[in-house]
């Protein structure tokens, strides 16, 4: 029981101390990685590269925030990447059929929420395994995307639809302030509303939450719907970025999101973690990917480096937890 929000002051302080240590470590790693990569390649700190880096992790920011909510409840969502492809398919087909960017946006969001609600219903209401349900919707959503797209991409030239994912102000992609806004809104939801407290409560101990009348099954439904909505938003950004709807968009995105959330200190067992950690996790992950590309690191070595970093952080997490319980 280490909920940061719902427990007494002593526990809260202790838990936050652990998270603060994690954030300091992450910030340290971000600084070390940035300095290292900039020494290896002058272009690392160039404004153009920073713009590329931020744009490339915008979608990961969004889906990772949704994944944070889910992991905080002790769940997992393996369907996010497929949902991005499916939502993109629905949005793009609506756009090309009706010519209306607004309808395209709305249907993309609704499509994402639809997959999220399937997850939420089976996991929250029917109490099925989150892993198994989202594994099923992972295949379902990708299959739907392939069928809708007929396995081919669809080009998009609607300037309004492409704006969010494709436009930059100078070197600053428009999508970054938007992601920051979403972060602020979700932070308010998570830390300042009863729903946020229910998210932590459901993850800390679902039975206790139920006894206390917190209705965790309803909370679970809504966190998956929220994650689906963020997948829908991500689909819109992805379409803008590549000027087309793609049946294979978002492939393996869920694994990157889970990695970033774990890097950010959110416990896979639920009840512990914060969005700030996820943001730092995504940033570190993005910097590593960007730096490895810039330095032309061999792809086999890249996998090794990513694996070692993740293993190191998980090990650090375990040691920190043991230190706290000792």
């Amino acid at each position, binding site marked *: 029981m280490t909920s940061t929000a719902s427990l007494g002051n002593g526990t809260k302080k202790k838990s936050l101390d652990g998270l603060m240590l994690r954030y300091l470590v992450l910030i340290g790693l971000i600084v070390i990685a940035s300095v290292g990569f900039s020494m290896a390649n002058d*272009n690392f700190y160039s404004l153009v590269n920073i713009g590329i880096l931020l744009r490339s992790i915008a979608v990961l920011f969004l889906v990772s925030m949704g994944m944070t909510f889910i992991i905080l409840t002790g769940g997992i969502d393996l369907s996010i990447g497929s949902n991005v492809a499916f939502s993109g398919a629905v949005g793009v087909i609506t756009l090309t059929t009706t010519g209306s960017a607004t309808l395209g946006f709305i249907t993309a969001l609704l499509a994402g929420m639809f997959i999220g609600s399937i997850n939420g219903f089976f996991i929250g209401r029917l109490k099925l395994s989150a892993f198994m349900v989202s594994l099923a919707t992972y295949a379902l959503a990708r299959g739907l995307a392939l069928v809708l797209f007929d396995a081919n*991409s669809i080009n998009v030239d609607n300037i309004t639809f492409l704006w969010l994912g494709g436009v930059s102000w100078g070197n600053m992609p428009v999508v970054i302030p938007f992601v920051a806004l979403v972060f602020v809104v979700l932070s308010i939801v998570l830390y300042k509303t009863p729903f946020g407290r229910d998210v932590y409560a459901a993850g800390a101990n679902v039975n206790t939450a139920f006894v206390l009348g917190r209705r965790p099954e309803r909370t679970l439904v809504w966190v998956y719907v929220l994650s689906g909505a963020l997948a829908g938003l991500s689909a819109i950004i992805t379409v803008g970025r590549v000027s087309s709807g*793609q049946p294979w968009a978002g492939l393996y995105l869920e694994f990157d999101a889970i990695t970033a959330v774990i890097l950010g200190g959110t416990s896979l067992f639920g009840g512990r973690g914060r969005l700030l950690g996820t943001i730092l996790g995504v940033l570190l992950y993005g910097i590593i990917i960007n730096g490895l590309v810039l330095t032309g690191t061999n*792809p086999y070595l*890249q996998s090794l480096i990513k694996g070692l970093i993740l293993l190191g952080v998980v090990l650090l997490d375990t040691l920190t937890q043991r230190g706290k319980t000792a």
Partner: protein
Amino acid sequence: MRLKTMTAGLALATAFGVGAALAADDTLDIVFINDGHVAPYHVAWLTGFEDAIAAYDKAFADVKVTGRWLSAEGSLEKMIQQTEVTINEKPDVMFVNAINVDAFEPLVAKAQAEGITWIAVHSPMESADYSFTLGDVVNGTNQGMAMCALSKGEPFQVGVMLGQAGNPSGEARREGILKGIATCDNVEVVAEQPADWDTVKAQTIAENWFTQYPDLDAISGVTDGYMYPSIAIATNSGKTDIQFYGYDGDIPIIQQMENGQVMADILLSGTREGWNFVQMAYRIHKGETPDKVYDFFTPLVLTEANHKIALEHGFPEDVQVYYVPEALEVAAKGYLEFGPDSVK
């Protein structure tokens, strides 16, 4: 004395350094962005590419040849990011094996504006400076026609393992194979299944087919990556009479032609192709202009005995065929055709 030696050493090192810098005043930086890096073909690709970079750099003192090979690990978004980062690095030549060419159209213009030569690999792009293609439809047709001929007019059932849905190269290979098979009446395609270029998925598909189609005579694939697990399952389950028709020219698969399991293959050879990429970049850098659509020479591989049988059963005489020994040598030694000596 020690100081003098050190000074002399430093002077010598400086002289060599300056000499080297003066000698290599021209640079050729090549970046290859690929969709993955785990398939056996990708491994061979990378090996050929890296060996060729080193060989060209060594062979030509006036050009500093460097190269990087990036893998998007199957993710479109990662590939876009890698491409954007690479454009910002301004290499001379970019080879891009796009997961989906439409998604890369906006980036081609960006790269060209930076003076980078964009070479689309396998899936042609109109906007690219060049497209490096494999003649997939023709190759597939040759594979299908070889199957027709080697089935000798007997009733013959085949399962065809496809690439990832929507992948242009995979679709072209499928089109060719089916076109080749359609040249005879006795070969029946009992199953078609995408294995997404994934050997593990290929294994599952082969297992299912062997159960579902007890009279299956052959498996045809759009990549040799599918052949490894399929051959292993067939061998382990005692189905030694199943024939395999591959595509890629992987050396271990060509080697299995002599024992009669693999009947035909298409000699792309990752190693060979890796060498050809560097040769192509070098030629462009030196001012040559290849065809906008550069068709890589990819012959059909058969054993000499099977070629004879195939010809007796209507296989066209004008289709160029490499026999196993020649194919193995060429597949292993990309420098024979595309090394520095080929452009000197």
